[in-house]
């Protein structure tokens, strides 16, 4: 399997390394940052005493105190607005939206307020908040527990959008997001919380601890925002993906028997355009994979960028594999969710000139 343990520049010397799943890695990031900086707070619905329904905020309250990690009313708009006020005061709030599908009540506060605060005030006020939320499909969550809203945020000037795909990145990227001076939408692929979904829903999933990326430093380190990871080097085609789709893409490449270069974008805004451009110019082909609906999804933006920058290097039309343009259907989850077969079909299509 792919080795994702490239030596990061920012690993703290102290502390060891422990196998962690993604939940534990995110939890570790919060514990480490809260221990280091009293301005870091964590709150949300069920995120205090209970530690969050997915346990990402587990033991924060017990360890750091009631006023540092607490439960909020069921009011996504209210809790994000409160975070914005706290951020303007000088704190570093990290809020949890229980499912990304519940982020819409807070959308105005995120988009009209947090995103624009620095700009509209001429730099007098800033909004250094992190909005964390589990997102995406693959756990039979139905329409309101499965959506992938990332493109709604990448379209908004002033927001950063970060999506990790493994425990090591999850901790490093969350730490970097908390330290970032801009508002960050931090989407956690909940299908990957407990194991590295390998794309084949009918096959047993191996535990995170079997993966190199589960060897997570217990101390502080960051994975910089704005740098993609080449998780598999290849020469035939470039796959651009993020979150759960990194694992689906790897499985799809193997299934197709294509020597694909797989790029985990890790952050959608800012986007590591240099890595994308270099890879597509090398391979001459590009397939984009995401689980959000296809129309106006982030793949459309990626496709346009690749076309603008790499057109004369392309040997086939750019392929897109995405969720369908329907609401998320409970009983048809595996038909909706892009799997390795669809990725493989797209890879074969671009290898043969893009016939569809």
């Amino acid at each position, binding site marked *: 399997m792919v080795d994702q343990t490239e030596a990061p520049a920012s690993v703290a010397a102290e502390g060891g390394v422990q196998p962690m799943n993604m939940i534990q890695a995110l939890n570790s990031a919060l514990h480490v940052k809260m221990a280091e900086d009293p301005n870091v707070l964590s709150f949300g619905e069920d995120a205090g005493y209970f530690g969050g329904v997915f346990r990402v905020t587990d033991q924060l309250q017990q360890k750091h105190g009631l006023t540092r990690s607490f439960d909020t009313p069921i009011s996504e708009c209210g809790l994000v607005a409160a975070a914005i*006020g706290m951020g303007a005061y000088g704190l570093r709030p990290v809020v949890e939206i229980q499912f990304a599908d519940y982020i819409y009540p807070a959308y*105005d506060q995120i988009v009209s307020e947090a995103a624009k605060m620095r700009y509209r005030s001429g730099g007098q*006020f800033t909004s250094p908040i992190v909005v964390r939320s589990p997102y995406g499909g693959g756990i039979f969550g139905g329409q309101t527990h499965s959506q992938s809203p990332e493109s709604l945020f990448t379209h908004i000037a002033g927001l950063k959008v970060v999506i990790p795909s493994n425990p090591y990145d999850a901790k490093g990227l969350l730490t970097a997001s908390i330290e970032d001076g801009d508002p960050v939408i931090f989407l956690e692929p909940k299908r990957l919380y407990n194991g590295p979904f390998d794309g084949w829903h009918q096959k047993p999933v191996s535990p995170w601890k079997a993966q190199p990326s589960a060897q997570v430093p217990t101390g502080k380190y960051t994975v910089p925002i704005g740098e993609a990871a080449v998780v598999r080097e290849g020469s035939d085609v470039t796959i651009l993906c993020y979150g759960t789709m990194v694992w689906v893409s790897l499985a799809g490449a193997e299934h197709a028997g294509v020597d694909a270069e797989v790029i985990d974008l890790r952050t959608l805004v800012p986007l590591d355009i240099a890595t994308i451009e270099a890879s597509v110019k090398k391979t001459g082909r590009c397939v984009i994979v995401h689980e959000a609906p296809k129309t106006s999804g982030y793949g459309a933006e990626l496709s346009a960028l690749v076309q603008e920058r790499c057109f004369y290097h392309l040997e086939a039309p750019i392929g897109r594999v995405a969720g369908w343009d329907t609401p998320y259907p409970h009983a048809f989850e595996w038909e909706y969710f892009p799997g390795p077969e669809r990725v493989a079909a797209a890879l074969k299509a671009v290898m043969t000139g893009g016939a569809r």
Partner: protein
Amino acid sequence: MTRNTQPLSLRVPEPSGRPGDAPDFSHLKLDAAGALDRPAIDARPVQMLDLAFRLIRVLDDEGNALGAWNPRLDAETLKKGLKAMILTRAFDDRMHRAHRQGKTSFYMKCTGEEAIAVAQGMILSREDMGFPTYRQQGLLIARGYPLVDMMNQIYSNASDPIKGRQLPIMYSAKDYGFFTISGNLGTQVPQAVGWAMASAYKGDDKIAIAWIGDGATAEGDFHNALTFASVYRAPVILNVVNNQWAISSFQGIAGGMETTFASKAIGYGLPALRVDGNDFLAVWAATQWAEERARSNQGATVIELFTYRGAPHSTSDDPSRYRPGDEHEKWPLGDPIARLKQHLIALGEWSEEQQAEAEAEAVAQVRAAGKESEAIGTLGQSRPSVKTMFEEVYATEDWRLTEQRREVGV
């Protein structure tokens, strides 16, 4: 099954007068000045429910200050407040005229509401944070924010402190305790609660104050703010400025027909004060009460400031299309400037001559600032470098913005 005796009918609230009608305020029940008790600042909300439905007034029709809410201010403070209100009105008049002369795209006067932001801006410190909506220019003026900077913002000229990025009147002035104004109504109120929670979390002594109009209380943000303020006992003052009109919709459309806006606090367990917003002393006293409550860690207070929006909603609005033309002149609570003037004269501390002098002085001050600002330029004649359009979107410019900036050629 029970059947209706007659078909159901839908009620749509209507104001007491429309264009062509005589103004009618007979439905208002106004308490006499000095009629209401002033509870202790640690009183429980349930012990003071009547204050949510009645009207705290200090100044009577003759300019006497009466009753337990009289804040007993010294003459210097009263004069300072009066002068700040006079200056605010002079500023509004000039900027409204500047719009008519094509020097800017938009303006909003606070005519009739000057006592609110001026008194509250004077009570709280600059270290506290005000989360204003768009008729609190008196706060900046009372605190001595440079008029020329306000005008530069209104003209979006090369010296605009916020670099031509905001609609005129949407100031940001951190050093003056004035949060950046949003055009999306109500969003600032839960942010004020969060800011106040942060101060409490840090163990600091700063409090927050927010304003929202009667119309915007129908936004979810207002109710979220009340929930959070109550749950976390945030040190914040939440003002509802009931100026009777949300553009053309009267306050009944926002829910003011069946109850008062102050009373909306009751269900949240917050103390509520309903106050004559045209009475400088009543506004002062209520705000001071709420301030002491917040500073002594007893949490938030909701204040409904009962007033009347004398001017159009904005320069884009013509109120003669939806309300009786002379309604403002008939407002039974009078004019805040005239009332404070009358009070100072009754105290023997002021005269008509001094008033005329102060008004002339304010006009001269505004004219001087206007000349200075117009020398820099009015809208379209002067503006910050286009380069600034791409700055401060993020803490650092990313490649997209760099490329787009170059495309513009800057």
